[in-house]
């Protein structure tokens, strides 16, 4: 069975399926791949030629179509639970409630059954504090004012310089970095909220 070209075609097909299924929870993705692989192995038999393999995969259908069906069948179920919605909202904007709302959001996230551990880790770390962190960024940077960075260059005795970085707009690079960080701190929590909303498992029927 494990001969050159036909085997390669099967591997490519399963790889495409894996890529298409990337957005699914891991258990679902593995299950789907295992089922499809079992089907393919039985469909093509022991010594398939290339044409037989292509015909079998053709009947099986496009990996994207199969995965779309998996999504469709998930979404056909009832919506996600109140706790999941609450967790997403609080993780995003709870930080504005003196930071406490975000912490409540984290607790709701971790006690929810709507997500896998990996998804919960992403939800917690991107970005701690949610959108509020972006708001506090200028305050934090402004309060620090200029920060000295000690740069040591080689040689003995070591030559030590102190380079001052001021948020009061010394260089264009600083501006770009701060602006980039700000944009990241706004976009990342929103993207994470969208991610959690899409990954949330619906309530059991």
């Amino acid at each position, binding site marked *: 069975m494990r001969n050159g070209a036909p085997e390669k075609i099967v591997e490519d097909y399963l790889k495409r399926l894996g890529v298409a299924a990337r957005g699914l929870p891991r258990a679902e993705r593995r299950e789907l791949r295992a089922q499809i692989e079992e*089907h393919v192995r039985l469909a093509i038999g022991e010594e398939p030629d290339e044409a037989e393999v292509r015909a079998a995969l053709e009947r099986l259908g496009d990996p994207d179509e199969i995965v779309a069906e998996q999504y469709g069948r*998930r979404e056909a179920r009832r919506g996600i639970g109140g706790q999941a919605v609450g967790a997403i909202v609080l993780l995003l904007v709870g930080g504005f409630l003196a930071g406490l709302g975000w912490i409540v959001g984290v607790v709701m996230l971790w006690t929810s059954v709507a997500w896998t551990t990996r998804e919960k880790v992403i939800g917690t770390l991107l970005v701690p504090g949610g959108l509020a962190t972006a708001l506090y960024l200028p305050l934090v940077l402004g309060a620090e004012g200029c920060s000295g960075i000690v740069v040591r260059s080689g040689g003995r005795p070591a030559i030590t310089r102190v380079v001052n970085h001021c948020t009061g707009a010394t260089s264009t690079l600083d501006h770009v970095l701060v602006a980039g960080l700000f944009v990241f701190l706004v976009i990342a929590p929103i993207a994470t909220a969208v991610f959690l909303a899409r990954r949330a498992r619906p309530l059991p029927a």
Partner: protein
Amino acid sequence: MVVEPRGPVFSQLRRGVLEYCVMAALRAGERYGYELVSQLAAADGLLTSEGTIYPLLGRLRKDGVVTTTWRESASGPPRRYYSLTPAGHATLERFSGEWMRFRDAVDAILDTRGEG
């Protein structure tokens, strides 16, 4: 309106009844995936692509109407066998009854065409 075997009308109908056809194919006893899919594929016009049965089986299992068991096979690695749970049998019974009423109603309307 365009009525074609692969058009929107029949794809909606197929989508609606496919899960019951899967359950019906399991009524007589357990089947492994390839066997089940081959049986459904043999029914004209029921399946557009064989692979989409697997997501459907996954959902039926979550809904508690189908269960999976692993079985050794005479040749090759163990296979997943699907079978209908008691809840599945009950659901299928209810659907069959409703389907016959629905089918008869549609047939009756379609057949009155020539008589009017």
